[in-house]
């Protein structure tokens, strides 16, 4: 599906530019996009290096295990296929907590580390596992208690009450997350059997 979306975006862009007789728009846009991609990754380097260092301390001190133990019921419900004492669990739960408290730049390193640990449990390294899909669903639906970035932007635009949107945003993000978890369940049961093997 991602292949089609990718080709679709490029193709319709080229056609649109050709219609306006401005094909050079494609080149500028492509280079701008590439630059943006690289600069996002470079921005990630410092965050990743720092947080992965901190997280390793937490892991070596047994803090991640503790977190996983406290949140075991949640973890068991969301990630039945991951052994509860596996290091992946600690990272998944710290990723979720970081997202919840709006610590966006700490959440990504923890999420990537969780993916790495989940990949160790994966027998087919090129195909996602059910647990990976669930982790992704939780991250894409963006469950967070306070939309800090948005509040900052509203403040910048001179809002009289920038925090007014907290309530509605929280409700909307809860809806999105519930739908994501339900759909994830639905597709998981359709794609995998009870033992975690692909159907067919």
């Amino acid at each position, binding site marked *: *599906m*991602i292949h089609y979306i990718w080709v679709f975006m490029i193709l*319709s862009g*080229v056609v649109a530019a050709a219609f306006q007789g401005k094909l050079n*728009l494609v080149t*500028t*846009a*492509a280079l701008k996009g590439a630059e*943006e*991609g*690289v600069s996002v*990754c*470079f921005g990630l*380097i410092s965050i*990743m*290096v720092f947080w*992965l*260092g*901190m997280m*390793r*301390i*937490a*892991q*070596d*001190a047994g803090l991640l295990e503790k977190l996983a133990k406290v949140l075991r019921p949640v973890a068991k419900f969301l990630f039945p296929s991951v052994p509860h004492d596996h290091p992946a669990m600690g990272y998944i739960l710290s990723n979720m907590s970081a997202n919840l*408290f709006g610590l966006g730049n700490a959440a990504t390193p923890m*999420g*990537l580390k969780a*993916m790495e640990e*989940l*990949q160790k449990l994966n027998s087919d390294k*090129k*195909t*996602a596992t059910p647990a*990976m*899909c669930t*982790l*992704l669903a939780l991250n*894409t639906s*963006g469950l967070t*208690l*306070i939309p*800090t970035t*948005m509040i900052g*932007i509203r403040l910048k*635009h001179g*809002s009289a009450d*920038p925090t007014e*949107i907290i*309530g*509605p945003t929280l409700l*909307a*993000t809860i*809806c*999105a997350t519930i*739908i*994501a978890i339900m*759909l*994830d369940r639905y*597709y998981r049961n359709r794609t995998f059997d009870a033992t975690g093997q692909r159907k067919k």
Partner: protein
Amino acid sequence: MFEVVSFISNMMLPAIIVFVPLYAVFRKVPVYDSFIEGAKEGFPTAISIIPHLVGMMVAVSIFRDTGALQFYLQFLNPVLSWFNIPNEVIPIGILRPISGTGSLAFVESILRTYGPDSFLGKLASTIQGSTDTTLYVLTVYFGAVGIRSSLYALKVGLWADLAGFLASWIICSIIFMPS
């Protein structure tokens, strides 16, 4: 409520940064060595995402900047306005899963034109804040570990984005709509 949550949120990072090494020292962990060991993985992980992210952002940028996006929106507008969803926020809904900065540009233009405290301003803020950029998260998370086949993950993410968009609209209509 907000004061409490934002206080916790602001205190969280410093607290973690102090608490984790302290606790580890107490448990006799060689903290600095642990930090270096973990931090080593940061660079290769960030670098390994580059091809995935460049690939995705190039496509998004072409789609957006050539006017292709605007073109498709023309067809969607009449359909969606039939549901009483304001035309102005539709580009945000469409762009939100594809490009966070792209949809933010539309949010900012609404905030500038109508003001952050107008109904449209609040609705746009809620839509932007309620979900994350699905395509970006998918690219980065799966890219970092080399997953090629994402199975149903994209579908789930996009449906959840639609749910977040509709929920934002319904909730804002109930809470903020000038009746």
